[in-house]
Structure formats: structure tokens, C-alpha cells
């Protein structure tokens, strides 16, 4: 039992480390997509943006964004010379905030298309499957996992992670219109189809190890909501078998919702573009296998009484009987003791909202510089990012860009490239190239790769 117990801890820790490593390899906030010229996907960040080509067919794109607000590998591992690193998990944990964000999101878009209407308008159709996942974990929860509860005897330890794992599909219809020469407005309406969802509505969970004989207890007001074709029971997650979920059930299913994006572009000068947008205002109504699990109260796992109900001490006497007590099934008992009550109840969950303000200026035709402010709402918290961007066009076929982004405890240098070969357009955008160059010191990562076909590019038009 104990081995099993420890293995669970091991896997959780290694999963955390793995995510941290993984996040440095694949990084995003969407800066490159926003600023690179002639990219269809720029309309995702601001639906007011219009393409300079008559028609673009998005063949597909895929991207991942990962961020660990707490620490990076460099905080955990210190090079000691040679090829070895000293592990300092305690130091990394000590440096954590009270609550720390671990977020991973990704999307696969396409096919889609955008069509210019006359000289003022643009309509677009987009499809995507997106996944947005985050855990907001308390500092002491990770400390408890790493150090064990023996390091927290007599302390109330906040362990309840707030989480939101949402995967959904969307079909979007966008429209952009030039009101006057200097101002464009745009909107995208998106039909959403929820695929799978797990989130916490309440996440108050305190763990305590009593000082007397280390009795364990939870004080909880913790509510988990799940929905989707996989009827997940988070209180029995170890027995969940993804293989039992039919792939066909993951397609557009019984959870629907709507969302919209709004955008504004202002061009006070021909070579200066100022944009503002708000994305993903909407929610999904989760109906399919909707389950609510609520634990509220104080739940204790005390010691067993080996003598209770015994007519006699039996052969061997009290000492042997007491020593025969082995904390079998301790972890199961502790989790089981949380007393989750299940309720079948539909619910609505909002998308992760994002607000952008940006400016892009081309002092000369081949050089562009930009700045961007982003505000993301994750759970009940807001995160801010500020980015600077510079790009250079190498002929009409290639654009290279660099970016710097600060915020969310990260300093990120991004690298972006777009290339056209005839109608074929390919782009790669990474918002944190430092994570590739120096993976030990990266807290976040993003990468998006996409390809499209563009037609009717007017000569002499600048990109963005």
C-alpha cells in the first residue's frame, strides 16, 4: 500500500516537472500571429483586422501554450559543473507565491476561409478545436507533496487546487467592416460545442496533520464539475480508463454555447495601426453527463482501534494486536473520507476571456515595430502581459520577427517567421525563444505552426 501511495506522489511530482520541461519546449501568447503580416490567424486576435489578399484558405494550424507561473527548471536545478545539476526543490517551493498558475492550452484550427468583400468588408469562416487547461495550485500543496505531511505537523495546509480543463470545438463566422478610412470594426460569432470539461467551482480544501499522533483531516468546501462523453468521477480518478471513451463521442456533442469576439482597428496614419479586441466572451452550457461533486465539512482520518469490538485480546495479547495494525488503504481512506456528494446538475462555464490592445507602426516598408498589452482572465484571476515586437521583411516571401514579452513572472523573447511560396503560406511563431535556447530558465512557452493558401495578393500592399 505504502509503495502505491508513494508512487502516486512520485507521478504527480514528475508530472509537474515534466510539464515544466515541456512548456519550455513549446511556447505562445499569440504575438507573432497578431503582428506578422498577411496571416489569416491575425483575425483570431482581432476580428477587425482585414487581410490584404482577396481570399485565404486556411489549411490548418496548431499551437500550444504553456505557462508555469511558479518556477522554472533553473529554479530547481543548479549547474554544479560538469554535467550534473543540484536539485533544490525546497528552494523553488519556498519562492512560490501563495497560489501559482500552471496553464496549458492548445488549438488546432482549420479548415477556414476569409474573403474580402469589396474594399471595405471581409467575412470569414473558421473552425477549431481548442483546449484550455489550468491549475491554480497553492504553494503548500506542492510543499506537502514534496516534503510530505511530516513537515507540516500541526499546520493547516491549503491544498485545494482550483482547476479548469476545457476542450471544445468552435465554428466561427467573422465580419469586418471599414466604417471610415481610419476605422474598422469586426466581430466573430462562434458556436461552441463542448467536448470535455472538469473544473472546480469551490476550491477550499485544507489539510491538517494533528500533532498528537498525526491524525489526518480535511476541511473542505470543494466542488468539482465534470461533463462530457467521458463520465469522469474525480473521486475515483485512478480508475478512469480513457480507452472506454469512444472517439466518435468526442465530436460535436451535447454541450453547446456561444461566444463572440469584438475588434476595433484605428489607423490614424497609413503606417500606424492601433487595435483593440476582446476575445471569447461567452460560455458553454454543459449538459452531457454533467456531474457535480461537492465536499463540505471537516473529514478526519483517525487511527483505527484494533481492540474495538473484540471479545478478547486473543493469542499474542495487546501488543501483537496493536502492532498488527497496518495503515492499509490509507490514501483511499483519506480521499474517501472527503465525503463527496454527487449531484446530476447542468452548469454553464465561461471561456477564458482575453483583452488586447496593440499598436503597429511601419516607419519604412520593410520594418515594423509594435507593442501589445494583453489581459487574460483565468479562473477568477487576471494576468497581464506587455509585448514589444519588431519585424523585417525579406522580400515579399519572408518576414522575420522578434518580440519581447514581460509579465506573469516571465521575460520572454519570441521569434516569428512567415514565408510565402506562391500561394502557399507557412508560419512559425514562438513567443519565447529563450525557452528553446535556455530551457532551464523558461517559465512559459508557445508555438504555433500554420499553413494557408492565399490568393489575390495586391502588389505593393503591406502586410499587417
Amino acid at each position: 500500500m505504502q509503495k502505491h501511495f508513494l508512487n502516486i506522489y512520485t507521478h504527480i511530482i514528475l508530472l509537474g516537472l515534466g510539464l515544466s520541461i515541456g512548456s519550455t519546449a513549446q511556447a505562445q501568447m499569440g504575438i507573432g500571429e497578431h503582428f506578422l503580416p498577411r496571416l489569416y490567424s491575425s483575425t483570431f486576435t482581432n476580428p477587425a483586422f482585414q487581410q490584404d489578399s482577396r481570399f485565404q484558405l486556411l489549411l490548418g494550424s496548431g499551437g500550444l501554450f504553456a505557462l508555469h507561473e511558479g518556477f522554472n527548471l533553473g529554479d530547481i536545478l543548479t549547474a554544479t559543473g560538469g554535467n550534473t545539476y543540484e536539485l533544490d526543490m525546497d528552494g523553488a517551493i519556498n519562492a512560490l507565491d501563495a497560489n501559482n498558475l500552471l496553464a496549458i492550452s492548445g488549438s488546432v484550427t482549420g479548415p477556414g476561409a476569409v474573403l474580402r468583400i469589396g474594399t471595405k468588408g471581409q467575412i470569414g469562416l473558421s473552425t477549431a478545436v481548442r483546449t484550455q487547461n489550468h491549475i491554480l495550485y497553492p504553494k503548500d500543496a506542492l510543499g506537502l507533496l514534496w516534503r510530505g505531511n511530516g513537515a507540516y505537523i500541526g499546520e493547516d495546509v491549503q491544498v485545494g487546487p482550483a482547476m479548469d480543463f476545457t476542450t471544445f470545438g468552435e465554428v466561427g463566422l467573422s465580419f469586418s467592416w471599414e466604417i471610415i478610412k481610419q476605422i474598422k470594426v469586426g466581430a466573430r460569432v462562434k458556436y461552441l460545442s463542448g467536448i470535455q470539461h472538469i473544473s472546480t467551482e469551490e476550491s477550499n480544501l485544507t489539510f491538517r496533520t494533528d500533532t498528537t499522533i498525526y491524525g489526518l483531516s480535511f476541511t473542505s468546501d470543494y466542488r468539482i464539475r465534470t461533463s462530457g462523453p467521458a463520465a469522469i468521477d474525480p473521486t475515483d480518478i485512478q480508475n478512469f480508463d480513457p480507452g472506454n471513451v469512444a472517439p466518435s463521442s468526442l465530436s460535436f456533442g451535447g454541450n453547446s454555447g456561444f461566444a463572440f469576439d469584438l475588434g476595433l482597428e484605428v489607423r490614424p496614419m497609413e503606417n500606424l495601426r492601433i487595435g483593440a479586441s476582446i476575445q471569447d466572451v461567452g460560455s458553454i452550457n454543459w449538459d452531457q453527463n454533467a456531474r457535480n461533486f461537492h465536499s463540505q465539512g471537516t473529514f478526519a482520518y483517525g487511527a483505527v482501534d484494533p481492540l474495538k469490538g473484540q471479545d478478547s485480546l486473543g493469542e499474542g495479547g495487546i501488543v501483537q494486536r496493536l502492532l498488527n495494525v497496518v495503515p492499509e488503504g490509507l490514501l483511499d481512506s483519506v480521499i474517501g473520507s472527503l465525503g463527496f456528494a454527487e449531484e446530476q446538475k447542468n452548469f454553464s462555464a465561461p471561456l477564458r476571456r482575453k483583452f488586447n490592445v496593440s499598436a503597429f507602426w511601419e516607419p519604412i516598408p520593410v520594418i515594423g515595430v509594435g507593442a501589445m498589452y494583453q489581459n487574460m482572465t483565468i479562473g477568477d484571476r487576471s494576468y497581464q502581459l506587455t509585448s514589444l515586437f519588431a519585424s523585417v521583411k525579406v522580400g515579399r516571401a519572408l518576414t522575420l520577427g522578434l518580440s519581447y514579452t514581460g509579465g506573469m513572472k516571465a521575460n520572454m523573447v519570441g521569434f516569428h517567421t512567415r514565408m510565402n511560396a506562391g500561394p502557399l503560406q507557412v508560419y512559425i511563431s514562438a513567443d519565447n525563444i529563450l525557452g528553446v535556447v535556455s530551457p532551464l530558465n523558461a517559465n512559459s512557452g508557445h508555438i504555433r505552426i500554420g499553413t494557408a493558401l492565399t490568393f489575390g495578393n495586391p502588389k505593393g500592399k503591406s502586410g499587417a
Partner: protein
Amino acid sequence: MQPNQFSPPTWRLFFMTACLFLTSCQLAELTDQIEPDTWEPSLAIPVFDTEIDLSELLNGNPAGENLQTENGLFVLIYRDSVRFEEVPVVAFAEDITQFVIDTLSFIPAPFSQGEIVQRIVYKTGTLDYTLFTSLTGSYTLEVEIPDATQAGQTLKGTHAVTGPGTFTFSLPMQGYDLVLDSGFFRLRHHLYDQSNGMEVDVDSLEVGMNNSSFYYLEGLFSDYPLNLPATDIEIPIFETLRADRIKLADPELTFTFENSFGFPVKLQVDEFSLFDAAGNKRSLQESVLSQGLDLNYPTVSEAGTTAITDYTLDKNNSNLQEVFSVLPTLVRYDMDAFASGKGPNETPIFLTDTSDMAAYIEMRLPLFMETENLVLLDTFDQTFDWPETDEVKNIEFKLVSDNGLPLDMDLQMLFLDGQGQVVDSLKEGNTPIILGANMDGNGEVVSSRVSNAFISLSPDRLNNLRQSSKIVVKTTVFTTDLSNGPVKLKDTYKLGLKMGLKIDLALDITD
């Protein structure tokens, strides 16, 4: 070349950019370069929490039913009894035969040991007589013992005979109360001629008393020794105990004699010895039983009743406290009794066929005691699933006791290998880890006392434990506050025991 068409330098630049991302694959090798590569969590879990009162603790002990409570105080009580192996026959009834000639004859009592029997109630026996007559004709023979009566009727036989001839008759004497005068009783006989009613002389009459036994016998008899068998009393509860010192505050040994014989008996203890488990012997020393104890007995007027004599030995009239300090596992005693055939001032005594004498011994050992280093041993197989030592830095047990017993206790475990050799122990020393309750001056518990004890198992010790095949649990007990005298062990006293376990691990994170 058109500016928006494919050009090799452009592609190279693009692919170089893409390849930058592959450097992150190097991270996969990091786990092999991390030092220290251990994860050292400390886990703390509760193990048990229980409460047991002294009754439960002692339930199933070797004393069994011998452990009782009196007003809540535990008392070890051992009882034994002895009876006479044979009924003491202080007078023997014999078969007698004699010829009588006179119509009134005085027949001696059927005893020949010098007894002066004054009264007999027959249980069995017959009066047998044989008439020889040479006369011809029909006659009636009458034989009577006027001193033998039953329900107001004398013992009398009337028989018709036709002579000449020899005629034998028998009269049962069961139930007849025969009163003797100076050891003789009277017997009359007559022979009548039926034709005229005239008494005629008998030629010869032979009278006998045979197969006599009695319900009751009264008179003056000879003295008679009564042998009681030697007896052992086993006290198994002490077989597993060892103590440097033990002192029972109030041991008692009570003798109760039941005597329904109507004569004086003097009882004398020849031996009263106690043996400990090693066979060492200590003898009881007192002045009364060794000199002889006169037992009560019923007088003639109290015939049929049982007289009781009680005698108690304690710390005041014997060395009982001392002899029990050896934790005896065996008590052996041997007693003799001497019956007197006469009462005081030559007064008659009696006995009946149901007269009985028994000696009852009750050994009462109230657990009101002092002790030092009282050791209880228990052995069982080591079958626990202890964790692998290479993953364990240390194990620490925390034992929390809430002790309402007036006993300080230490717990030691000895780990034995297959050859029975001690390979390690749980801890060093024998300092009590469970402190006894708070006491008043009368040996009573006032309140329980909480103690915390920490016992650590290093990997080496844990390894020894895992490799052991048996565990000997050695519990060492001291009565609380020894300087304040004895303490009482009561059934309501409770011992609360809680244990938590803290285990420091060292796990290989690359495993």
C-alpha cells in the same frame, strides 16, 4: 526568380529556425544528471488509538476465573479443599453369638475395643437366633430386646414351631434405637405350648447379632488419628512473571473447617510451603496451626449439624507477606488431625454414618501491591510487512499514553533470529515510557497521566527487524510512586494508547 517564390536561402533560414525547437529534446537527458537524485518526503500517519480498561487487559490471563473483583479491586483467589479419605471409625461393630439360657439375659454391645457404647441407631444388622427343642407338639417362640425401640415398639419376634426340631429366625434391626446400660442390653425369650398356653423351657437358644452398622453411635471411645492428604495448589499466573521485588499489601490465607463429627478434633499443619518458578521454596511461619488448632464440633444435643471453624492467616500473624513475595507458582500444604474419643470431662461423644470433616483453604491475594521490575514476557512470530530499508531513512513511532493505571510501564521488543538469538532490540534501556497515573495516599488513582514517547528505528535496526523471525515483547512494570507504598489495581482503571508513525523516506526520483 520572383520575390515571392521559393528560394533555397529562404528555406534554409526557415528550417534553421524550426530546428531551434529541437534543442529542447536535450531536457530529456536531465534526469540522469540530477544530484542528489532522491526525493525525501516525510510521511506522518496515525496508526492506532485505543483504550482498554484493566479488566480487558487482564482478560484471558492465566489466572482465569481465579481473578475476581471485590469493590472494583482485583483479587486473586485460589481455593482448595480436602476431605478425609475414609470415614473415621472410632468404634467397630462386631458379629457376636452366644447361647442364652435365662429368659432374661444381658447381652454385651457388639464392640470389643474397650469402647463404652451408650446408644446405637442401627443402619443394618440382624438379630439372629436358633431354637433347639426336643419337645413334641406345637409351640410359640417369643424373642424381644426391650432396650431396642422404633416408633415406640420394641424389637420383638413371635414364631410358631412344631417340635421336636431346630428352628432359625432373623429379625432386622435397621432403624432400631438401642440404648445400652453399661455396655449391655437386655434380651428376653419365652416358649409357649400352644395346646395349653403354658410356658415351657427351651433346650437351647443361640442368639447372634450380625452385619451391624449404625446411623448413630454414642458413647466413650478411643482417640483416633485422621490423616489428610497433602495437596498442591498451582498459581499459573505467576509462571510468566519475574520481579525484582513484589509486595502484596494484604495477602490472606483462610482455613475453614467443617466438622459434623460429634467429637473434638485438633488440627495441625505439618507443611505449608510455596515454590517459585525456579523451584525455590519458602515456608509459612505462624504459631497456631503448627501447634494445633482445636476445631469446633457439635455436641450430642447438636447431632446432625455441622460445626464450623474459621482461621485466617495474614501479615500480622504470619510471614505470609514475605512468602508471597517470591511470586509462588505452587503452594503445597499437608495437615493432620487428631480425633478425641471422649468429650471434656469424660462426656460422651457421637458420630453418625454421615459425619464428615472437610478443610477449605482460600488464598486471597488482593492486587494492592508494590512492585519493581515486574516483567511480563510474550513471544510471537514476526510477520509484519516492514518497508524496504533502502527507501527508508528513519522510522519514528510516537506513543502517546493516557494512563489511568497506577503503573509505570516500559515496553521493549527483542528481535530473535531463527536460532532464537537476540539480534536487536527496539530501544536502549528500560526507562518507563508510560508513566503511571497520579495517586493519592491510599493507593487510589486520582487522575490519569499523559506521556509521550518516541522510538526511532534506523535502517540498520529496521533491517534486523525485518530479518528476525520472532519478537519477544517484554513489558516491565513498576508501581507508581514506589515511595508512597502500595497501589490498588481496580477494574475501572483505563489505559489509553495512541500511536503515530513518522517515516522519513529517500526515494530515487529516476526510478
